[in-house]
C-alpha cells in the first residue's frame, strides 16, 4: 500500500467508524443517564431491536425517515416504561427484568417482522449523506467527517447536550444524587422514583433511536437480530466511559473503529486472518474492557438497587 492509498483507507475507516458508532453513541449516552440514577438496564439489546423495528415499520408505512426515527424513540420508551414499572414501582430485580426484556424484544420483533414484512422483501428509503459545503471537499478529512447523514452528525449535539444536562442543570445534579444517595434526594424533597423513571425514559428513548438508526441510516432493511449484540456492548462502553456522556461518545467511536476495521480488513484480499476472528473483534474488546476495568470505582454506588420510600 502506498501512502495515498493508506490515507484513503484511513479516511474511509474513520468515516465508517463514526457511522458504525452512531447507534452505540445514542444508546450508551442513554444508559449513562439510566445508570447515573442507579438503574442498570441490561435490556438494551431488546430495546434497540424494538427501536429498529418500529423505525422500520413507520418509515415503511409513511416513507419518512424523521417519522421513523420518532417511532424508534417511542418504541424504545414504551419498552422502557415496562422496564421502569417492573423495576422502580414493583421493585423487581433489574437484571432479571432486563434479561426478560431482551428475550421479549428479540422474539417480538422477529415475530412481527415475519408476519408482516418478510414476504414484501422491500427496503425503505434511508437518510442520505449531507455533504457539508467546502468542508466535505477537504481531502481525506472531508471523507472522514463531512459526508455523513444528519443522524450521524447529531451524535455530537446529543453528546454535548447530554453532558450539559447532566452536569449543569438541577435535573442532572439530582439525577446523579439519586444513584448515590437516594435518601438524601428524598429528604431534599424530590421524588426519587420520578427521577428514575425519567432517567430510564431518556435511556430507552436514546436506545430506541440508536436501534432506529440501524434500519434508517445504515441498512435499509430490518433483519432479525439486526443489533447483533450492540445492546450488550453498550454496557461495556458505559463502564469504559466512566459514566460520562462525552466519554461514551469517544469510547463508542473506538468500538466503531473496531467494527469498521473488521469490515474493511475482511474486504482486503491480502489479509489472511480468518474473517471470523475479525468479526469477533468488537466483542473481544468488550470482554477485555470489562475485565481490565473490573471494580474500578466511579460506578454509582446504588446501581441496581431499588429505593424504599419511607
Amino acid at each position, binding site marked *: 500500500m502506498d501512502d495515498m492509498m493508506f490515507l484513503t483507507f484511513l479516511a474511509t475507516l474513520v468515516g465508517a467508524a463514526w457511522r458504525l458508532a452512531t447507534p452505540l453513541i445514542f444508546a450508551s449516552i442513554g444508559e449513562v443517564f439510566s445508570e447515573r440514577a442507579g438503574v442498570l438496564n441490561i435490556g438494551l439489546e431488546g430495546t434497540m431491536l424494538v427501536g429498529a423495528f418500529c423505525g422500520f415499520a413507520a418509515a415503511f408505512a409513511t416513507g419518512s425517515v424523521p417519522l421513523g426515527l420518532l417511532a424508534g424513540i417511542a418504541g424504545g420508551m414504551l419498552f422502557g416504561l415496562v422496564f421502569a414499572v417492573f423495576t422502580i414501582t414493583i421493585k423487581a430485580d433489574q437484571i432479571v427484568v432486563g434479561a426478560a426484556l431482551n428475550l421479549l424484544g428479540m422474539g417480538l420483533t422477529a415475530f412481527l417482522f415475519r408476519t408482516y414484512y418478510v414476504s414484501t422483501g422491500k427496503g425503505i428509503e434511508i437518510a442520505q449523506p449531507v455533504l457539508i459545503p467546502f468542508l466535505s471537499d477537504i481531502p481525506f478529512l472531508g471523507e472522514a467527517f463531512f459526508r455523513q447523514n444528519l443522524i450521524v452528525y447529531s451524535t455530537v449535539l446529543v453528546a454535548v447536550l447530554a453532558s450539559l444536562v447532566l452536569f449543569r442543570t*438541577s435535573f442532572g445534579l*439530582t439525577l446523579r444524587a439519586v444513584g448515590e444517595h437516594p435518601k438524601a434526594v428524598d429528604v*431534599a424533597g424530590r421524588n426519587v422514583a420520578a427521577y428514575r423513571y425519567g432517567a430510564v425514559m431518556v435511556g430507552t428513548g436514546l436506545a430506541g433511536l440508536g436501534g432506529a438508526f440501524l434500519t434508517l441510516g445504515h441498512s435499509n432493511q430490518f433483519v432479525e437480530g439486526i443489533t447483533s449484540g450492540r445492546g450488550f456492548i453498550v454496557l461495556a462502553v458505559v463502564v469504559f466511559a466512566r459514566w460520562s456522556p462525552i466519554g461514551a461518545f469517544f469510547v463508542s467511536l473506538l468500538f466503531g473503529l473496531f467494527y469498521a476495521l473488521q469490515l474493511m480488513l475482511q474486504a482486503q484480499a491480502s489479509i489472511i486472518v480468518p474473517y471470523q476472528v475479525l468479526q469477533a473483534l468488537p466483542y473481544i474488546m468488550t470482554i477485555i474492557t470489562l475485565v481490565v476495568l473490573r471494580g474500578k470505582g466511579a460506578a454509582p454506588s446504588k446501581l441496581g438497587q431499588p429505593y424504599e420510600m419511607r
Partner: protein
Amino acid sequence: MSQKPFLRIDNIRKRFGPIIASDGVSLEIEEGEIHSLLGENGAGKSVLMSMICGMVRPDEGEIVFKGQSVRFNSPREAIRQRIGMVHQHFMLVPNLTVAENYILGQGSALRVINDMDKVHARIRELSDRYALDVRPDAIIEDLSVGEQQRVEILKVLFHGIDLLILDEPTAVLTPQETDRLLSLMGDLVKDGKTVVFISHKLDEVMRVSNRISVMRDGRVVHTVNVGETNARELARMMVGRDVRMELPRSPEPPGRIVLSVENMTCRAETGLPAVRRVSLDVRAGEIVGIAGVSGNGQTELSLALAGLLPVDSGRVMLNGKDITGLDPARINASSFSHIPEDRHKHGIVVSMSLSENTVLQRYDQKPFASRGMLNRRVIGEHTRDLIKRFRVKSRDENQAIGALSGGNQQKLVVARELARNPDFILVNQLARGIDIGAMEFVMEEMLKQRDSGRAILLISTELEELFAICDRILVMFHGEILGDLPPDRTRLDELGLLMAGQTEQPALAG
C-alpha cells in the same frame, strides 16, 4: 412569649406495624432555648424529631409551630417553615461537592445551574460567621466524619432555619469537635435560633441545655430546668431506677498473657503510617484500655488486630500462636471477639435479620448447622435468648437489624461477641449510641467476662468509660503508645497531657 410556645407537640402517635414508636407524646419547646432530649435506646427520640422535620408522618396528633398547626409531607416543606434537622445518619451525597449538596432539590428541576459563584460566596460567608471551616468545593467523601457534620449543620443554616434539631451529633465526634459543636450551639442561640439536642452523654446535656426532656416508651415523662437537676437524677428518670456510675470491682491479679503485640507497624488505607511499633500485652482477667484523641491510630490498630488491615511488621500472638496476617475469618475462629468501631461496615449486615446477624461467624458450625443445613430452630432460640438478656428492643428475631434504633443494633453486636465465649475481646467504642442504662449493663457484662478470665482490650475516646472498668490505661498518640497508667482519676491531668503527646512532666512552678 412563654404563654405561647414556639413549638408545641400535642399527643402524637406513631406506629410501625406492631411497634409503637410514639405513644401520645407531648412536648413544648420555647423560642431561643437549647432543649435536650434524653431517653433509652428505642424510646422514640429520633422518630419524634423525624415527624417534626417532615421525614415521617404522624398517625395522630398535632404539631403547632409559631402558633400555627403544621403538617409536613416532606422535609422540604419543614425547611420552608424554617425547621431543619441533622440526622444520626448523614444525608450528604458522597460524590458531590458541599455546594452541590446544598442546592440539591432547590429551585425548578429544569434550572440551569449558573449561580455557583454566589452559592460558594454565601457558604464561605456563613462558614466564617460561625467558624465552621467548611470549603464549598470540597467533595463530601474526602471529609472526615466531624467535617461532614459541620457540613450538615451549615446546610441547614444555608437553607435558613429558626429551629435546628441535632440527633446524636456528638456520638461520632472527638472531644475537641464536641466542644466546638457545643459552643456553636450557644452561638446559634445568640443569633435567635432554637436548638433541640439529642444525646446520651449526660455531661454534655448538663453543660449546654436550658431545659431537658426525658422520653420513655414513646412518651415524654419529665421536663426539667437544667438548674433543678443533676446527672444522677436524669439517669434515674431515663431508666426508672438508680444507675450506678461506679461499678464494684474484684481485685483479682491477672493471669497468663493472652494477647501479645510485638512492635507492630501498619499503615492506614491512605498509605500513611498509622501504628508505629506498638507493643502491648493483655492478660487473662484484665481489661486494658487505650485512651487517645480519635485519629491517633486506634482505628488502624484495631483493624490490624482483627485482620482487616495488613500488618507491615511486628507480630500478634494470641494464646501463644502467631495470628499476624491471618484472614479475619481465621482470627475470629481463634477465640477472638471483635466489637468494631463502625458496626455498619464491620459488625452487621443491615438488611439481614437479627437471627442471621447473631450467627454471622458461626452459621456453619454446630449447633447452628448440621450436615450443611442451617438449624433455624436453634438459631432462633439462641437469638431470642440474647435479645432477652441484653434487652434488645425489637419486634422479633426475624426483623431486619437495620430497622432497630442505633443503640439496639450495638447491643446485639455486643451480645453476639460475648456469647462466643472468646479468650480475647477487642472493643472499639463500646458505648457508641448506647443509652446509660444499657451502658451500665454492658459494662457489668464486661467485668463479668474479665472475672471469668477473659482478656479484654478496650479502645475508647470516652475517659469515663475507661476509668469505670479498666485495670490499666494506655495512651495512644500519633500511632505510638505513650504511657501506662492505673485508672486513677487523680491522674487525669497526666492522662490529658499524654493524650496531647506530652511525655515530659511539666516543671512544677515555684
